[in-house]
């Protein structure tokens, strides 16, 4: 009942063979998601909004309604928003504003090659209305990458339509991504009456 999120994981080797497949309930939406939702519900447009939250660079930002407020459909190579992964296992806290140690885009040590992030409406079935957000990341670093954390960064806006990036969700997941392999992360966000 209510709003639910699940994370599906597929880790594959250099031949594309799936070597790990898991799914679990998402641990948490963090404060950033709720603050952006609140700004939209309030139609917050005032010059000094009461709604403030830290962006992914740890800068306190005044949030207002945005174009588009929850954008997560990041293009390939962009780790400012969309699904992101990292290598730190610090427990989730509601106040967190970023992954603790995000894997950046690239082929160096502990880097991953981020593909485009896509969203798909699944429709209404069996009493649930759901959509997915998914992204694949390839490991061309020359060594395994130990992923410990997964999240969704969203693109939003502050006064003047300046884009800002807010972490909406963070979850822990311990996975080894082999060199030459990759990972596909699928968030399923659904409501069940």
């Amino acid at each position, binding site marked *: *009942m*209510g*709003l*639910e*999120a699940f994370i599906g994981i597929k880790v594959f080797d250099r031949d594309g063979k799936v070597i790990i497949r898991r799914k679990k309930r998402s*641990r*948490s*939406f*963090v*404060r950033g*998601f*709720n*603050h952006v*939702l*609140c700004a*939209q*519900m*309030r*139609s917050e*447009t005032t010059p000094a909004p*009461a*709604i403030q939250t830290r962006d992914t660079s740890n800068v306190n930002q005044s949030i207002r*309604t*945005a*174009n*588009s*407020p*929850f*954008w*997560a*459909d990041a293009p390939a190579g962009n780790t400012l928003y969309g699904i992101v992964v990292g290598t730190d296992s610090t427990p*989730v*806290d*509601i*106040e967190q504003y970023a992954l603790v140690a995000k894997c950046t885009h690239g082929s160096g040590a502990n880097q991953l090659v981020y593909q485009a992030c*896509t*969203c798909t*409406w699944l429709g*209404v079935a069996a*009493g*649930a*209305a*759901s*959509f997915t*957000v998914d992204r694949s990341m390839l490991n061309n670093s020359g060594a395994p990458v130990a992923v410990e954390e997964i999240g969704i960064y*969203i693109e939003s806006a502050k006064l003047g339509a300046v884009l800002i990036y807010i972490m909406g969700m963070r979850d822990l997941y311990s996975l080894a991504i082999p060199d030459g392999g990759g990972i596909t992360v699928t968030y399923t*966000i*659904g*409501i*069940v*009456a």
Partner: protein
Amino acid sequence: MNDLLYEVIVTDKHGKVIDREAGVSRSWLVAYNKGLMGTFSGSAQTIVDIGGVGRTQDITYSFFSSQGLANYDNYGAVIGTGNTAVTVSDYKLDAQIGHGTGAGQMLYLAGSVSSPTVSASASSFTNTRQFINVSGDSITVREIGIYGYIKSPYYGCYVRDVLGAAKVIPDGGAMTVIYTISHEE
């Protein structure tokens, strides 16, 4: 974890609390999640409005706006007399009570959406509205919900709940609806 909680408070003409109910909301509805998907993807979705017509959402500034204005019964917290069981595909209240002073109507006051607060493990805010009964007779409320913008001037039903017990609002009395939207780690 995500919690959507509701509380309704009924008062008589003297402001005395005569009934109260709090519970876990039955559900966000398809309009909410499809709209959220549209804003995630940047691709506007078609969402059924409260008139039963599919509308292409505004994925920008006004989407989700649900801080109702006084005298407007088409967005913000809303109330009704129906008790049909909730399904995720509901697109309106079963039988909404309209704004006014006539038989079966209540006055819709301005709603308010609070600033979010953050406790040790949760981020929360509220969407609140009061309704006054000056119809000359009692009115029985069985359902509550939240209407909000899909795209001006069209509105969708984001939340609907059937109350655990019907609430009788006496003439001169009022009902306050408080939804708490909370995300917990």
